[in-house]
């Protein structure tokens, strides 16, 4: 593969500072308010040395009452999203694929650090987003599906589970371990060809030569990283910076914190330089217009960018 070095600063734009310095793009046509825009919230503060990450309650603390039942139902849905809510999941992903250890693990976008940050005003879609709306975004983009209704049993159960995991966490205060704690962009930019080498050595065993993942019968074991069974072009994980954070802290599975910043960025770029399902917000059927409106200032991403002679963002079904 030809080297596709792209200086990240050009693309970083205001994306990494989203919610702090980003200008409202009020010039665009009104949007469907259901489409969560996947903008990044401010970065999590670093964890002071010697201090533990927030500890969510243990399973043994789930009360044996109606509330506890809904917590368990939410946890079941979180782990088995495709199996238990198939009408809302368009690919082969489950919530737990990106939120390791059932949404408990620090730096794997733990729910205990997300739930207490909502509702949150986001300039990009110029409205206050509730936690439920944020989850609807997950279904729409990361699961490439259809968001369940805000008052549905599914989202109520998932909310209840997140609320329970946040027991004792401060409200409205960004906690260390929130999100994916992205490594800084490497000085010389990232390199897709180098990322391919990292992928073949570290990732391919589980995720397959073509990023297709692995299944046992109908049950997905290793999630697809690109292609029709993976997250779509609107998912937060399509940003190289976001994927780099997830990968560095959590991959290879159980051996997080072993890849360098450079390796994490390179392999994230390799993964996100492949086609995946179209961004459901596609504007007038145009990749360029969609890039301009939703991707140009959304972190570092390759939507609408020409890589190896091909414009990415065509989508796959």
């Amino acid at each position, binding site marked *: 593969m030809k080297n596709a070095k792209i200086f990240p600063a050009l693309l970083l734009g205001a994306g990494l500072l989203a919610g702090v310095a980003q200008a409202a793009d009020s010039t665009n046509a009104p949007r469907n308010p259901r489409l969560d825009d996947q903008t990044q919230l401010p970065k999590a503060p670093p964890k002071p040395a010697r201090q533990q990450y927030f500890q969510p309650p*243990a399973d043994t603390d789930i009360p044996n009452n109606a509330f506890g039942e809904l917590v368990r139902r939410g946890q079941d849905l979180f*782990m088995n999203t495709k199996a238990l809510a198939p009408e809302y999941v368009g690919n082969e992903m489950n919530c737990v694929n990106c939120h390791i*250890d059932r949404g408990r*693990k620090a730096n794997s976008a733990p729910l205990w650090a997300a739930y207490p940050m909502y509702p949150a005003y986001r300039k990009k879609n110029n409205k206050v987003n509730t936690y439920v709306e944020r989850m609807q975004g997950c279904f729409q983009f990361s699961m490439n599906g259809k968001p369940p209704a805000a008052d549905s049993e599914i989202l109520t159960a998932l909310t209840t589970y997140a609320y329970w995991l946040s027991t004792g966490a401060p409200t409205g205060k960004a906690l260390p371990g929130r999100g994916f704690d992205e490594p800084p962009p490497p000085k010389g930019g990232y390199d897709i060809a180098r990322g391919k080498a990292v992928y073949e050595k570290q990732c391919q065993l589980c995720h397959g030569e073509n990023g297709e993942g*692995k299944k046992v019968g109908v049950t997905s074991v290793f999630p697809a990283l690109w292609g029709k069974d993976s997250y779509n072009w609107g998912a937060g994980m399509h940003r190289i910076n976001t994927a780099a954070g997830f990968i560095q802290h959590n991959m290879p*599975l*159980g*051996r997080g914190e072993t890849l360098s910043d450079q390796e994490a960025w390179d392999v994230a770029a390799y993964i996100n330089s492949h086609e995946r399902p179209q961004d459901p917000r596609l504007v007038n059927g145009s990749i360029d217009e969609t890039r301009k409106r939703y991707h140009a200032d959304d972190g570092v991403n390759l939507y609408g960018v020409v890589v190896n002679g091909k414009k990415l963002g065509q989508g796959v079904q």
Partner: protein
Amino acid sequence: MRKPVPQRSPRFLLLPLLLPALLPLLAHAADGSDIMQKGGANPAAMPCITCHGTDGKGMAAAGFPRLAGLPEAYIAKQLADFKAGHRENAVMQPIAQSLTPEEVAAVAKAYAELPKVNIKPTPVERPQPGSGAWIALRGAWERNIPECTLCHGPAGVGVGDAFPPLAGQSALYIENQLKAWRGTKAVAATRKTKAVAAVPPSRRNDPNGLMAHIAVDLSDAEIKAVADYFAGLGESKEAFDESQHRLR
């Protein structure tokens, strides 16, 4: 009127008698099933069935693993790793060294073709913290230990060529392997006891080092509990039904 029974020519009767005499000629093509029963061409390559059972299901109590239905590539890799010393084992290393590459390929294929383990179809119950099921289905992420089923598949059925089935495998074998990946730490001398030297891991063939750190961070009690859990999942009457979603 009864028809007379046609008389067979004595030549036809001779043919079945001649066939066994031709078998040694076929053995050049390395018959996997034959190697299981009788061993390899080199007498040091003992018959597999001695320890792994006539049906390939192993001898659980002795810690001899089930090989029936394991992936062909996985078995071939293990034999290659025994040969290369990445897996140390006093019994298996000499055998692996005595098998020709053709014999390894043939015996791996033959075992892969035997029936896979049948797994209990009962739905997965919510595991209790501190149990073997908990390690298997939830892991111990505070020590970066993923749940076993995340790689070995639902109910430990096995995934692809790199993640072998755990369900129905000998508990002692699973326990031994985790300890082989771990080795033992050195114990300092005290007034009453002598120092014990560290034993390095005797199994060093896990792809990407995925198993070693897990084994190091599991306690003996956890290893035993999780081994017992998976051993207990095997041998139902029906085959594993892949068409059903398996819940975590």
